[in-house]
């Protein structure tokens, strides 16, 4: 397992909004989360990303106080909250199921938290009204949640949490139940709201695109372990290991042996990659390269070049994907934009011999 430094760039003197310190959660002998350490900076849009069962929701529930960690400590704004129940933590949650109170009106749902805190009546009325305005639900204030659409219910859940002005807002796959168009719209809206009010968002998702487009930083989890933590660019362009490389979008992984500035494929030519630090001579490696980083035509000087055979052509509107065999059993996918140059009639077809190339700095050598 490779773990990159998970520390946020903090404003000096200000503790991280959330700190997980070697947190573990085990059920019997199996670990849901193991040795997770994270610092989340104040005002950051932070996402926990991973496939189902990777421990992302468990981690979020431990921050919220719904699940007790087996080991480790959780700090909010520098204070140890590990032993505190949810109602004593200054965080609020947007649940995956929204968990609205169906017997209360939209207005009373949103006012629920402020009433528990004993905020004055007039202030409650004002803050609730402002918040409902903010999420465009003012006209629906007297309706029951059961009479609302999915997107509206989602906004009620968001308003109900945000009206309390928590230090940290936890969001458990809040957009998973929405259809694609609405999801795109809510992604933009969520990001806007977060920038406006400046609250720290911790966002759980299994959707890489969502994590890439929304987060300031993202932590990729797999099987309870932190795989990598960094900016979207970090995890996409410089994945720490083959799991991250293949989970974040598609990546070609070519197995081979590292030898003085190149990766020698098991049955095929050597692929030049340039010198790499920290990789031992003759060690088994995977060469990782994104489909959009491989060129098929007009190869530029300085590129690594390899011959291959086109095996499959998949046309999908704006792009075309080619499956190209570089050596027996080694096939890479190549993504081409369907610009004027590569029109339908120009496209390569199966069986054709082509030369592919890439800039050595675009490929990664993973142990």
């Amino acid at each position, binding site marked *: 397992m490779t773990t990159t430094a998970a520390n946020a760039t903090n404003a000096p003197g200000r503790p991280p909004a959330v700190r997980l310190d070697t947190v573990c959660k085990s059920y019997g002998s199996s670990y849901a989360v193991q040795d997770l350490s994270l610092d989340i900076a104040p005002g950051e849009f932070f996402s926990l990303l991973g496939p189902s069962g990777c421990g992302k929701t468990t981690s979020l529930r431990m921050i919220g*106080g719904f699940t007790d960690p087996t080991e480790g400590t959780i700090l909010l704004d520098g204070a140890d909250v590990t032993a505190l129940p*949810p*109602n004593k933590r200054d965080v609020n949650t947007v649940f995956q199921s929204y*968990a*609205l*109170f169906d017997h209360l009106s939209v207005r009373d749902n949103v006012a*629920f938290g402020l009433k528990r805190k004993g905020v004055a009546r007039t202030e409650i009325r004002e803050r609730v009204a402002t918040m409902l305005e903010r999420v465009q639900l003012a006209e629906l204030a007297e309706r029951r949640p059961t009479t609302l659409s999915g997107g509206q219910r989602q906004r009620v859940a968001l308003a*109900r949490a945000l009206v309390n002005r928590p230090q940290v807002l936890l969001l458990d796959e809040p957009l998973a139940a929405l259809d694609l168009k609405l999801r795109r719209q809510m992604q933009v809206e969520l990001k806007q709201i977060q920038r406006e009010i400046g609250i720290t968002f911790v966002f759980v998702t299994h959707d890489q695109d969502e994590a890439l487009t929304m987060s300031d930083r993202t932590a990729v989890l797999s099987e309870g372990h932190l795989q990598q933590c960094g900016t979207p660019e970090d995890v996409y362009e410089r994945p720490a290991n083959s799991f991250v490389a293949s989970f974040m979008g598609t990546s070609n992984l070519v197995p081979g042996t590292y030898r003085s500035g190149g990766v020698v494929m098991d049955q095929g030519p050597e692929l030049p990659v340039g010198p790499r630090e920290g990789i031992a001579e003759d060690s088994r490696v995977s060469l990782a390269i994104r489909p959009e980083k491989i060129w098929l035509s007009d190869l530029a000087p300085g590129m690594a070049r390899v011959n291959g055979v086109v095996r499959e052509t998949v046309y999908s509107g704006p792009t075309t994907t080619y499956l190209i065999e570089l050596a027996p059993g080694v096939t890479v996918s190549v993504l081409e934009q369907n610009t004027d140059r590569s029109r339908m009639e120009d496209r390569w077809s199966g069986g054709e011999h082509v030369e592919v190339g890439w800039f050595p700095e675009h490929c990664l050598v993973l142990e």
Partner: protein
Amino acid sequence: MTTPSAAARPARRGTDRKPRFALAMTVAFFAVLYLPIGVVVLYSFNSQKSLTVFKDFSLRWYRDFFHDQLLIDSLGMSLQVALVAMAGSLVLGVTLALGLVRCRNRLGSLAGLIMLVPLVTPEIVTGVASMLLFKGMQIPLSTGTVMLAEITFSISYVTVILRSRIAALNPEVEEAAMDLGATRWQALRLVTLPALLPSILASAVLIFALVFDDFVLAYFTTGVDPQPLPVRIYSAIRFGVQPTINAVGTLMLVGSIALIALALFIPRLFGRRGGLDLLSGK
């Protein structure tokens, strides 16, 4: 969009005839079900004492009933027992159901099974056992002992109805309440119980109806004076059927219908689903 009309479909022999047999069966079914009750209602308005010849319309048996202090006392006692049993079994039954759903271990599932035993125990066994228990503890039989026995008997019904409803609740809703600053108790009171209200009302109606006219358990656990209404009616009938009983029966019928109507109507007040869902405990 067009749908194929019934006429356009090729006529199949037999299927489009009027279901005469089914119709006859339905009529017979309702006749068997309601004729005896109809007779009781009809003769409660008879001016004569006869139970075979209807003479004129009269309210004399109702007048008699309201002047019969023993019967009035019995009615009062039955109402009291039903109300107390309803309240007591609701509190205990809802608490038990919450505990059973949330206690997911061996003890919990064992308790869940034991809880079902009272439902299948013949009532007469429960009755005799209750009486022997009270006698053994030297507790004199009275209205109080009837109440205790009826509460014990009713808890299982409440628990069975509530348990499935609680299991179907989204656990995130109670967590959301705590997330928003509610304590455990507040989350229960402000979120969980309101969500369970339809099922709680359904059990309340059911328990009231079951206990109000329960004979067996009441017979074994009651004192001499007053006696629950069903027991009183039973002893009165042993000395010949009085038309007053018809009047009592009719009043009980009206009361039950009113109760059902109320049960159907209450959920509408809350802006919820129809009351029929409610009665089936869904």
